[in-house]
């Protein structure tokens, strides 16, 4: 089962993402900020990261920088932001995100991207179970 780390300081958002991802059969771990996320990564790396931008202690950019600097298998990361500006997107790419989505992300869209970034074909068992 693919493991996804959802990093967001807002409980509602974490719940929202967890609901979507779990209903599609993914194993979801939560972290409330970058520091906690790095601790989770240290325990075991994930297959995909869903990263919020603004968080206390260590924000999404900081987390991605730290993550990408680690000598670990590097999994794709989706940055989810409320900002739609081109600069915000570029900053996300600079720090190590692989996809930049603007909130609110519709469940179907999110799943579609998650499947793509996890290499699951539309009809493969992996995608749908």
């Amino acid at each position, binding site marked *: 089962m693919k493991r996804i780390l959802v990093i967001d300081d807002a409980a509602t958002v974490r719940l929202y993402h967890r609901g979507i991802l779990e209903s599609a059969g993914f194993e979801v771990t939560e972290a409330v900020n970058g520091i906690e996320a790095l601790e989770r990564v240290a325990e075991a790396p994930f297959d995909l990261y869903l990263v919020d931008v603004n968080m206390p202690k260590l924000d999404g950019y900081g987390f991605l920088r730290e993550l990408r600097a680690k000598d670990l298998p590097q999994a*794709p990361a989706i940055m989810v932001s409320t900002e739609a500006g081109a600069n915000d997107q570029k900053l996300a790419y*600079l720090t190590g995100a692989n996809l930049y989505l603007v909130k609110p992300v519709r469940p179907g869209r999110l799943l579609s991207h998650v499947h793509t970034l996890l290499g699951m074909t539309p009809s493969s068992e992996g995608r749908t179970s």
Partner: protein
Amino acid sequence: MNPLLDQFLSEGRDFLQSIGERLLQLEEAPGDSALMNELFRLVHTLKGNSGLFDLPEMTRVLHAAEDLMDAVRDGRIPFDRPLADCLLEAMDFVATLIDEIAEAPGDAPPSTAHHASDALRLGETLRSLLQDRARSADGADPAEEEPPAPPERPEAGASDARPSALDPIDLPEPLRADLIRRLEAGGSFCWLRYEPEEECFFKGEDPVHQMLQLGDPLWCRLESREDWPPLAELDAYRCLLRFEAILDTTPERLAEHFRYVPDQVRFEPLSQEILTAATAAEGGPASTSDRAFSAEAEWSFDLVLEAQREILALSDTPPWLDGRLRAVAASLSAAFASVGRESEIEGLEPALQAAIETRSPTPLFAWLAARHPQPHAGRATAPDDDTGGGSDRIAAAPAPGEPTSISSSDPEESIRFGRRAEDQLTSPRTLKVDQVKIDRLMNLIGEMVVAKNALPYLAGRAEEVFGVRELAREIKAQYGVINRIAEEMQDAIMQVRMMPVSFVFQRFPRLVRDIAHKLGKEVRLVMEGESTEADKNIIEALADPLVHIVRNSLDHGLETPEARQAAGKPREGRLSILARQESDRVLIEIADDGSGIDPDRIRRKAYERGLIDEAELERLTDQEAINLVFAAGFSTAEQVSDLSGRGVGMDVVRNAIARVNGSIDLRSQVGRGTTLRLSLPLSMAVTNVMIVESAGQRFGVPMDAVAETVRVARSDIRTIKRRRTTMLRGRLIPLLALNDLLALDAEQIANDDDELAVLVVRVDQEYLGIVVDDCRETIDIILKPLAGFLGGLTGYAGSALLGDGSVLLVFNPRELI
């Protein structure tokens, strides 16, 4: 209007134009696969774009059109005329919607729900075309298609979805496992889908009650068959529900339960295969939701690749570059795997190693560029709600925290859309500018041209009133400079306003095709000189008259194939529309090789209608008779067809052309055809007028209309049939006094030799003398049409400001007389 919608509308019109052109081209070359792909792409993109807004009617029709084009592109159904007709009609419908939306005030697109029935009808027509053709194609080539599974994708929205559409994604994992266990233990369950018809409430049905009667389901889902409209437009009496359930019951009982609505339910005994349908779907026909998923997947694929390309284009080298590159490689690898292109992943790893060694993304960038050259414009657009919405809704159900993100407000999409629009702008280095802005600039320049004319007056006053000759000279010198700049500006703005006649011509292939088709005629349209340019006003004024002329040609000029054959002509008629520039005029020639105009018939008709008397009937030359078609209220059509109609005749055409100082010339030979020549000025922004005086006032007359000015001795004026006339070089010229025409209460003033100033004007090849008090100089003016209350005064072509600040009224001889 909000910029995104604005962009969508203007882009949408371009798309429709291109789609129309491609469709017509495809008719000529039905096998051109590049054309077909292009057409599909256009329809697909337009549909995708429409999905960004809450425009269900438009999206519905476009979606059906897209499916149809998809089938054509794949060679599953042939491209032919009825199909093209259908698609063209669909595009016309979309154009209507776009126009309606563009005209509506406010930021959000207005509801187009009143077109819902049209949309439904069009959508169904397109779909039935697809089904019929697919069936007949199957029937025609039974050898080619294996019986069980023609690899044809079922249309989205078709309700014959097999239970395999009960995708395992929909079922909570624990329940699925539980069900499989209970099935193995010998339990029997049914899968049910119930889609009550929209009008069910009016038939005394109660779908919810029906479902409740079935007892507690093991699993149940209730969803809307389409996106909910905004609350204000919600029609609560339309049932759009879809029930799905897994029940501990038998198919027989369900059949009994739903016996009154058998066409609205589907059910099937639950089996392990259905529960693990994903693997089964591989071999069987692809299900509806698979289709949706694959569209989503492809779109995601494009989006992810585009993002990686952007990341690889970054030029910084931070300490975490390695990790970033690895993550990109991982994303690329996954993305290719997600669309079944695993085989292409080899080579990625070496590229990644090379990139890490050189601390540069270039090797990866090259790898990507080789495999995915340029993201396709159409692909980068979001799939619409019909294909993608299904999965959205399913997953949305258990997520209570989801904000109501209906397509139009999704910022994720708006950004992408905006970026795409920019990309398009960069390719042709042109700027799309609102016409209003150009008009404003043009008016301002016009005012400056007039304002600068005050300088010579000023110089004159400086010298004569204040006696400073030096200053007067300087003012004059400066005037020369300003004058030159003003003239150049004027020339520049004229260039900007120039438009090719193709703006008008481009609609003709379609128009001719449709009309010819309707009339059962075969017509070959030849167009030349589409790039000939003229001022925007001229081109715009040309549009309606030209359409009318072309319709006339098709309706009355060209004969049916049979009649042509009988007359020894080729079955296919020929209609040519040519444009060319000749000095400062644009000439447009519309010629057909049809039956021509019979002067005798015209004479007879004109006589019957009282347009000419018996004497004229005898006297009129053939050419004069033919020109009678321009007379008001003349129509030779034996039958009024729905094409040319009644009421709008050639007189309207002639007047429209005359309004922009154009002229029209008609030549026709019986049995050989008819040729109409329009001659129009290149530009009407600057008008050369002659200033005349009458009753102490100054008026302008367009020089185009002035043939000559003469002095006529009062003694040479005779009254014939109560009209004053004079002889001018052997020709009898009727005379009219300007004061009478303008209802000015004054006698025309003669000069000291008792001669009257006469302005000889030419109106429709006829000469006429207008008696004025005096003829003065000619000047260039910027003619502005009369606006507001004065707009209704037909006798005037407009007004202009003179250099001394006074207003000059310019009259229009044709209307005045």
